Structure formats: C-alpha cells, structure tokens
C-alpha cells in the first residue's frame, strides 16, 4: 500500500482514539485536512511549486506512523544539540512525542512554553483563536499535518511580556528499528509589545529513516519582537518539510533565521504577511550542503498593507553533488504603498556537479515602492585564494576562511551571544574551519 493510502486508512483509527479528548473544532479541522490531503496527495514535481524537489523517493519508504516515545534518552544525549551556555526553557520531543522529563516548561502568569497537546486539550482560547488560522490549509502537506499533528511546541506570550530566557525546541528522532513519519506542529502567539526568541532544531540520532512534516503558525502582535532560529541539522537519512506561516502586526519586528545543513531532502516554505503598517520582517538563511542532498527554500512575503519592510538574505554553499533551490516570491498589493522589499540570494558552487535553481518572483501592483532582488552564483575566487596563500594562509584554511566570510552576514541578526557562538561554531564545523571563530568579528 502506498503511503498516501496508508495515511488515509489510518485516519479513521486515529479519530476514534482522539475523539474523546479533542474539541469539535479540532476534529472538524482534522477532517477537512484529511479531505484535502486525500484529494491532492503528496506534492509531485509536476506542480510548479515543487518543480525542483522530488518528494517521490521520500514517500516510497515504509513508514511507521504511530509515534512511540523513546524514554531511554538522557539530557546528556541531547545537550550537544542545544545551546547550553545559558538558561532556557526547553521543549524536547522524541520521535514526535513530548518528553516531559527532558523538558523545562514555563506556565507563568504572563507566558506559556509547553506542549501543544496541553493547549488544545485544555480548551485554550488562544489555541482556538489561532490554530489552523494562519497556515494555508489548502496546501497538502499542511493539510496532512493538520489531520494528524498532536504534539509540538506551544509558546504563548501575553501582551507586554518578555520571555526572560531563550526557548529551545528540539525534535529528536531516535527510532532505530523503523522508518518514522512524524507530524509535528508549532503554535507561537506573541501578543502586542511582547518579546520572545526561539531556537528550533531537528536532529536525528539514528540511521533509520526519518520523515518529519512540521507546520508552524506564528502570530506576532503590534510592536512585538519575535526571533525564530531554525537549525535543520539532520543526518543524511532524513526528509524534512517545514511550512512556517507568520502574521505580524503594526510596528512589529520578526526574524526567521534558517540553518539548513543537509539531510536527504529539506523543503522550507516560509510565508509572511502583515496585518498592520510599519512592520519589519527579516529572513536570513545559510545553506551548507554536500553529498547527494537537496534543500529547497520557498519564501512568500505578502505585502498587503503600506509602509512595511521585508529583507531576505539567503546564502548557500554547495559541495559535491548537492543541490539547492531558492524561490523567493514577493507580492506587493495595490494598497501597499511605501513598501520596502529586498531579496538577496548568493550561492557558491564548489564542484561541477553541485547545482542551484534560483528564482526571484516579484509581483508589484503598487507604484510607490522600493523593491529589489539580486542573485549571484559563483565559485571561490582564485585571486583571493592566491592572495591569502601569498600571506602564508594554507589553501584549505584560505577556502574555509572565504566560505565563512561569505556566510558570515547571515549571522548578524543573532543578538544572544551564547546562541551566536553556538551557531557560529556549527557553521564553522560544517565548513571544517579551524580558525579562532569566537574572535571573528561577525
């Protein structure tokens, strides 16, 4: 039986098991999701939006659908993948299931950091207000997620509150016996004038195949500040489809900073929209690939109100046979005057077999706007390498130095020093740089 049919068949059993604990609203959304998924199935390369990204290999495997938690993990097993230099709230999910003992949740008067399941079984008003309202539920991967997802991160910050610690969310895959398909769901609600920073990491610890389909809905209120760092540092035996939807209010600022470090296939759908004026959205990303891997970044920034700004900086370094896709769509609707929308995609190809498909897509219907896009594809500069060598820097270090310098400006919006150090070290490790990075001026 193919995966689609297997999922459709399992849905009935799933709803019977969950009926007692879920609200009518959630059940309706699940049924709608399943109907859309059943009608559309998994995306194929015949669709324009998936033209370059072959999901067919990933869905051919025989997946175990029911998550089973692995409780043998200790915090020392996951610490290497977390930012450990600072106090943080932690949500740890193992094989798609929340692990309370490894987590450090927050249930305070002014903010919550907890498992999403607690939110929707607790009849949370906030949950009902936002769940399934920000995501594009017509997309089949989102619909599939809505049908099944029970676990994930719920971060709710009430008006005016500032979450005092970094929120770290880590999805660990540790199922050694079977290929695992996980549907996980994040809901982040940051009310007016509130602030929070979140680190989300997907990490596989096993060689059994892991396919994660994650959907994140983020609502950012007026004058609120939100930063979301995504570390997609999986092993080769993984597929990750990440669909993230952000809606932000007037005078708010947001950052989604993606670190795509490989895996068999990674697809990021990042969607931004503004509900008020003078808001600023920043999207930074660094993609470092080698082997026979593919990372596909699809962004969509919808400027429907005036005076907002969006900045996209996507950088990629592709080695061996790896492949990248960048499709950056910016829509500036008729009323969105004084929009500033910038998009930059720079790529380094280190071999003849590495490839990047890059496509800026600007649709501008307002006449008083500043929009730009730029795209470069190049190799390491021989002239610069010789210059460095002539000063005594060996070729390997010179290359690493150039790559690090190339990637460096995607790290500029990280303001927590410990997090910055951790992410710099991650990038450095991926690039095999032996430089004293902490002192590099980034």
């Amino acid at each position, binding site marked *: 039986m193919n995966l689609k049919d297997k999922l459709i068949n399992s849905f009935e059993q799933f709803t019977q098991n969950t009926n007692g604990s879920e609200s009518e609203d959630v059940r309706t959304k699940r049924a709608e999701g399943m109907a859309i998924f059943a009608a559309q199935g998994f995306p194929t390369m015949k669709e324009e939006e998936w033209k370059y990204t072959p999901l067919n290999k990933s869905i051919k495997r025989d997946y175990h659908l029911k998550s089973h938690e692995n409780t043998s993990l200790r915090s020392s097993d996951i610490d290497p993948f977390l930012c450990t230099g600072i106090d943080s709230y932690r949500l740890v999910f193992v094989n798609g299931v929340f692990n309370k003992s490894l987590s450090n949740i927050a249930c305070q008067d002014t903010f919550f950091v907890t498992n999403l399941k607690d939110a929707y079984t607790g009849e949370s008003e906030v949950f009902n207000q936002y769940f399934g309202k920000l995501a594009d539920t017509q997309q089949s991967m989102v619909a599939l997620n809505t049908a099944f997802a029970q676990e994930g991160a719920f971060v709710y910050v009430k008006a005016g509150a500032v979450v005092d610690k970094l929120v770290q969310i880590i999805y660990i895959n540790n199922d050694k016996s079977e290929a695992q398909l996980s549907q996980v769901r994040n809901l982040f609600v940051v009310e007016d004038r509130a602030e929070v920073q979140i680190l989300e990491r997907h990490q596989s610890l096993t060689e059994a195949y892991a396919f994660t389909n994650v959907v994140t809905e983020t609502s950012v209120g007026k004058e609120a500040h939100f930063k979301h760092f995504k570390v997609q540092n999986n092993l080769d035996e993984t597929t990750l489809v990440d669909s993230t939807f952000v809606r932000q209010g007037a005078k708010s600022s947001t950052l989604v900073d993606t670190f795509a470090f490989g895996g068999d296939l990674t697809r990021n759908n990042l969607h931004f929209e503004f509900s008020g004026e003078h808001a600023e959205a920043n999207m930074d990303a660094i993609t470092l690939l080698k082997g026979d891997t593919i990372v596909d970044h699809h962004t969509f920034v919808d400027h429907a109100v005036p005076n907002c700004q969006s900045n996209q900086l996507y950088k990629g370094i592709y080695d061996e046979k790896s492949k990248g896709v960048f499709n950056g769509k910016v829509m500036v609707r008729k009323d969105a005057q004084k929009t500033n929308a910038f998009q930059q995609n720079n790529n380094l190809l280190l071999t003849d077999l590495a490839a990047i498909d890059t496509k800026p897509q600007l649709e501008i219907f307002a006449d008083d706007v500043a929009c730009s896009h730029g795209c470069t594809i190049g190799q390491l*500069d*021989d*002239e*610069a390498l*010789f*210059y*460095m*060598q*002539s*000063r*005594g*820097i*060996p*070729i390997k*270090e*010179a290359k690493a*130095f*150039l790559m*690090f*310098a*190339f990637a*460096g*400006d995607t790290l500029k919006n990280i303001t927590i020093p410990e997090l910055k150090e951790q992410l710099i070290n991650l990038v450095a490790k991926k690039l095999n740089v032996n*430089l*004293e990075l902490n*002192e*590099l*001026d980034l």
Partner: protein
Amino acid sequence: MLKIQDLKVEIEGKEIIKGLNLEIKKGEVHAIMGPNGAGKSTLSAVIAGRDEYEVTGGTIEFDGKDIMDLAPEERAHAGVFLSFQYPVEIPGVSVTNFIKTAINESRKAKGLEAMEAKDLLKLMREKQQLLEMDKAFMSRSINEGFSGGEKKRNEIFQMAMLDPKLAILDETDSGLDIDALRIVANGVNKLKSEDNAVMVITHYQRLLDHIVPDFVHVLFDGKIVKSGDKNLALELEDKGYDWIKQELK
C-alpha cells in the same frame, strides 16, 4: 638569497619570460623596470608561486633551496612576500583577522605557538603607526572599499607584520598620491635591514627617489637586458626605453 637562473615562463602557450637571470643578496634593494608587457608582474607572481603560470625552464632558489615545487603559502612561510599591484578585496574578513591568521599560520609552519592576543595587538599598533593608519581601519573588511592609497598601505602594513626576508613590491607606487607614496616608501625603508632584501617593480623613478635601489634592471621582452646602479633609473626616466630597444638591435 634569491637566485633565478635561465627562467622561462608561459601562460596559455605564450612565452612571457624568456630566459631570465637575477640574483638578489641580503641587504640589497633591486629595482625592476621596463615597458608594459615586458613580464614584470609575471616575474613577481612566479616567484610568489602563482600556479596559472607554467614554468618551462630554469630554476628559482631561495636561501639556497629550490622553491619551484612549493605552494605559495610555503614560500610565504620561507620568507617571500609579494605586495600586489591590485590587492584583492575579501568581503567579510577583517584586516585584523586576516593578519592574525596569516601570522599564526606562519608560526605554525615553523612549529611555534600562536601569538598571544596582547602581543599581536601591540605589534599591530606599532606597525599601524609606522604606516600612519587609522585604528578603525583594522576592523574593516580587507581592501573592500579601500582607496588606492589605503590598499597599498595595507599591503605594506602586512609586510611589516609578517617581516619577510624578501619583499617584492609590484607597482606599489601606482595609484598613490605624493603623501601616500612618502608614507609607503618610508614604511619600506624602516623595515629594511642588513638581513632582508627588497625587489621593487616600477615604471617610474619617483618611487626610487624614496626607496633607493642598489641595482636597477631593465626587463624587456622577457629578459633582463640591462643592469646598472640607481643612475640607470634616472636615465630611463629621462630618455624612456627606446634607446635600449635601439641598443638591442
């Protein structure tokens, strides 16, 4: 220190250097002059180890050792320094980081520990002053947006930091105004000692007013066709190269 014998160099099948001999001893300043296309920059790049050029004959010895098979960084570690005619811009790498890495890689090659941060800073300050450079300069990306003069000063600053045995200055005077020329030349003269040597490649006498050569060589069509003392440079300034071409006929 540097001994070049019957050097022949091609690029893309075209012979640029056609049997060149040159010997530079420590303590000496040599000027290489010559018309455009004579092979001056090729010579400097080949000594530094640029691999686009194919050496088809001859030898280059440095401190008595054949350096033909050494990578550019190994030549640098041995004490060769090339000041580029067109220094390369490297966005995202600060002057400080660049020079720190260069120094520590050289030290590593010699089996030495990395230099202490405070010693490095002290050395940098000292050399900055020598070249009348602003402190803010150090945190800028290397050569990015630098003026012509700043780029050349930065080259000599790096030379000062790395303290090479042989410094090759490839048209270091091009793009410099009078003040910058004086600063750069002054820097080179301060670094000059009995134990090191300088090879100055230039079109013009004006740099040689400041960095006074012991020997002047005329490079023409891939060979050194005439050598003399500093007066030869004056003569070239006065008469151009045509009389040498006449002599050769």
